[in-house]
């Protein structure tokens, strides 16, 4: 067994929140810069230029990339040979929340989380949405996603009939982006979850967002490319003001499902796709 202290996890999640709030991953930056160079629509091009400038200013002045500093999602993958040494905290949720609390205060991030239905602000942006899987190995890996709600509000789930083919699924995904229009701050990233149960499909659509921008692709490569192409034909463009770049990347994650159904979920992330991964 390999021991991992709670402080170790808090520190790493804390710095992941800092990194993701003020800068984008190199892969995401690359896609944005490429789009800014190639966009031909004058409005779309202007929006992309302002986005690039915004990213530079955020870094220079240490101001959050976007005022919606979001809800924090942490996807933990804990090795079966790793053991978390709980001392001051009682759960992984508590550990993640502590990292959120301290980082949101220290870095002047907006506290956007409220209770429901009272809508009373929790004042420290906790709680985080915590997911945990036990995997082989002795490491603790986590993926952090900071999700703004301009894009989160456009999430969709559809329970297809089992006989629905890939064309129907593709059309659904493209329609989701079309319906979202300018609201999720395009150019967007699209995560598609297929299969499982309704909840599993939505979960997978979020996990798929963790892969956007990366060079590794799997068996859905062609399907994903067709979706990206179909979305970009919509002409929504950067900021929704027109152009060729509406979607910068799309990824699919799947899980077997029941003979009687076919759940499909679509999660959209704004151009400010704020994520960070780390391994302890």
């Amino acid at each position, binding site marked *: 067994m390999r021991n991992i202290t709670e402080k170790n996890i808090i520190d790493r999640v804390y710095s992941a929140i800092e990194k993701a709030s003020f800068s984008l991953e190199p892969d995401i930056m690359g896609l944005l810069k490429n789009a800014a160079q190639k966009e031909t629509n004058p409005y779309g091009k202007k929006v992309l230029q302002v986005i690039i400038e915004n990213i530079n200013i955020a870094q220079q002045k240490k101001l959050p990339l976007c005022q*919606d500093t979001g809800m924090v999602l942490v996807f933990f993958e804990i090795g079966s040979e790793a053991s978390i040494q709980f001392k001051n905290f009682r759960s992984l949720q508590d550990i993640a929340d502590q990292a959120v609390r301290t980082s949101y205060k220290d870095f002047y991030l907006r506290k956007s989380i409220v209770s429901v239905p009272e809508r009373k602000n929790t004042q420290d942006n906790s709680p985080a949405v915590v997911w945990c899987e036990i995997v082989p190995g002795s490491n603790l890996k986590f993926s952090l996603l900071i999700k703004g709600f*301009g894009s989160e509000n456009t999430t969709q789930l559809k329970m297809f009939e089992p006989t629905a083919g890939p064309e129907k699924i593709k059309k659904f995904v493209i329609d989701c982006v079309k319906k979202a229009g300018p609201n999720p701050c395009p150019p967007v990233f699209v995560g598609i979850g297929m299969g499982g149960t309704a909840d599993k499909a939505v979960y997978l659509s979020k996990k798929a967002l963790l892969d956007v921008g990366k060079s590794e692709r799997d068996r859905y490569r062609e399907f994903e490319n067709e979706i990206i192409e179909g979305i970009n034909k919509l002409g929504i463009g950067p900021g929704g003001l027109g152009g060729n770049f509406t979607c910068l990347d799309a990824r699919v994650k799947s899980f077997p499902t029941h003979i009687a159904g076919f759940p499909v979920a679509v999660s959209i992330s*704004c151009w400010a796709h704020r994520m960070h991964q780390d391994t302890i």
Partner: protein
Amino acid sequence: MKKIIAPVDSKIIEELKAGDFVEISGIIYGARDAAHRRFAEILKKKEKLPFDPEGNIIYYVGPTPAPPGHIIGSCGPTTSTRMDKFTPVLLEAGLKGMIGKGIRSSKVKQAIVKYGAVYFVTYGGCGAYLSQFIKSCKVVAFFELGPEAVYQMAVEDFPVIVGIDSSGRDIYIS
């Protein structure tokens, strides 16, 4: 590039056309979901709003806290659609402009035409960039709403694009 001073009058608004790049200087008010719900309740009770909407512009924004040495934190636009149901009564009360991002309902569009107002869009998610154009910022109402309070902001050359002009032309549908 057109330049306007806020508060504005209908004459200046009539000259703005969907798609125009505009820079706003002067005083604008920041307010979003929770504040709008309260505005609508106040107007329903025929009471006074915390600021006079006549000729004014509301910016749909919930800024991040100002770090030391800054006037304001990041302050980009939030999605306007959620303010749609509260907007026609504000336009009726004299509001002349709104700044946000994204589409508006047909009811809002009709009210914009009826009351001679304008809907501006600005750069979604570009809160750090937009903070440069804010010269002062103070909470003027609903302090307890935190990021959803009402802010009075002095702006200089704040960049926007006309989203829906006073004749109802919409940049998003062309």
